[in-house]
């Protein structure tokens, strides 16, 4: 990926700002998402809540199913590859979708290396729990970042933790005297040049969406007020009692996140949200956010 291609890929994510990216598992759901005002769809065979329930190894979805979804919508289509599985990424690039999510929701294929994303022309979004993780992914060529949160739980607490952690670390870096940056970069596993860039900009140099546990319009507005650029909603829509109105409501609340009256209106009468999971009740080896580093 040359510098110009990378810039174009960062810029596509910039055009998604203020929007909602929705997980969809078939053409019907993709159509509902597009009509609700999603800015992109994430095509996958099972939403994270089902992946969590089913157990076993979760892999890239059937390309035929991704292709059918791509054909059915005009908004960008994303799909997930396993962490480190660069051949799944090659397949998704050959399929000519718009964005690859190198995702901890799938079972990692490599516990040491993430994908070398600079070898691709297609853009990648990667999950992160803190600033160091975000910047390591950017150093590997990610053009967009999202919080990991804890996917498939309908519990926003981890997404909040990850967003607050990133923001705290960015603020620390922005205010720190220059001679402290080397140590901060070392302790947080941040490439020094990127640490300097964050210090200069006071934020990530690429778009940062919230993901992992967003289930209600209020959750989406909360993440937006915490400073993310947009939201991913995975299981939160199609695991809810009535997906279409909930999808529309989350789009509204994301656009008008700082207007309580509008978020109130969006929150009315949506029926049951997806069932939630308490994080402490999840066996430690089933915490998805710990995958990748």
């Amino acid at each position, binding site marked *: 990926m040359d510098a110009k291609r990378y810039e174009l890929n960062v810029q596509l994510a*910039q*055009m*998604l700002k*203020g929007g909602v990216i929705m997980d969809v598992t078939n053409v019907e759901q993709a159509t509902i998402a597009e*009509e609700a005002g999603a800015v992109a769809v994430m095509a996958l065979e099972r939403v994270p809540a089902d992946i969590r329930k089913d157990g076993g190894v979760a892999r890239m979805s059937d390309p035929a199913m991704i292709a059918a979804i791509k054909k059915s919508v005009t908004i960008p289509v994303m799909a997930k590859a396993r962490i480190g599985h660069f051949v799944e990424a090659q397949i998704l690039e050959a399929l*000519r979708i718009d964005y690859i999510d190198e995702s901890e929701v799938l079972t990692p294929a490599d516990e040491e290396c993430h994908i070398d994303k600079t070898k691709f022309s297609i853009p990648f979004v990667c999950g992160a729990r803190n600033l160091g993780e975000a910047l390591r992914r950017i150093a590997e060529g990610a053009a967009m970042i999202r919080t990991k949160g804890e996917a498939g739980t309908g519990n926003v607490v981890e997404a909040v933790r990850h967003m607050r952690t990133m923001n705290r670390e960015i*603020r620390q870096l922005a205010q720190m005297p220059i001679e402290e940056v080397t140590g901060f970069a070392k302790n947080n596993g941040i490439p020094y040049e990127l640490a300097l860039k964050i210090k200069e900009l006071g*934020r990530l*140099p690429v778009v940062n969406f919230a993901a992992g546990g967003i289930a209600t319009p209020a959750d989406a507005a909360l993440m937006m007020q915490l400073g993310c650029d947009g939201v991913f909603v995975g299981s939160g829509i199609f695991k809810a009692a009535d997906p279409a109105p909930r999808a529309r409501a989350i789009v509204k609340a994301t656009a008008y996140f700082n207007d309580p009256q509008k978020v109130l209106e969006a929150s009315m009468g949506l029926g049951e949200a997806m069932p939630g999971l308490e994080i402490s009740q999840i066996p430690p080896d089933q915490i998805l956010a710990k995958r990748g580093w």
Partner: protein
Amino acid sequence: MTLHLVSDKPSVIGVLDLQGGVHEHLEHLEQLGVSYKRVKHPSDFADLAGLIIPGGESSCLSRLLNIFEIKNVILEAHRKGMKIWGTCAGAILLAREVVGETPCLDLIDIKIERNGFGSQLDSFVSEALIPAVSAQPVPLTFIRAPKITDAGREVNILLRIDDYIAAAESENILVTVFHPELTGCLALHRYFAIKCGLKPAANSHNCIDPLWKSSSWTKHAGIA
């Protein structure tokens, strides 16, 4: 008592702040030295000299315009003289005819096809001379861009490339399928500001802002 000042002409350009590349336009307007603000509530649209509808996803933007009744507010402000510039998705919203879809604002007689080039892998940059806009070549960034395939007789075509139209205008509307706000070029913003009756800063004549970086938008999108 209400004061009516004769010289009180609208002097602010609004950027529609619902979804998409809002910060990038704010940054260019700031460089140009014209007054600007984000607009998203009906009351924000009173007394705007111009409105920029940014790139984003047109299906999302058109839905939000409809449900929050901003569509009629924009149409009313346009009737009162507000100029409008749509980039990429914004151009789709302004078009009279959108291939395969219902048009949204229907304010300029063009036919436009969403996603005319393919997927993100087909996004590209190039440059072209747009004589009406700048004496220097203008850098062009196309991201999953639409194609304007036809234009009515009263529409002035500013840039034609191969089989499509990339920039066009009528008396009150400007459309570009590319993204000047994603380059260091201020020429289109300057052109629009003048169309709105504003006077951009004297030093904005150069097409390319030498201080612009691809991360310049971030200063308008700080963390909470």
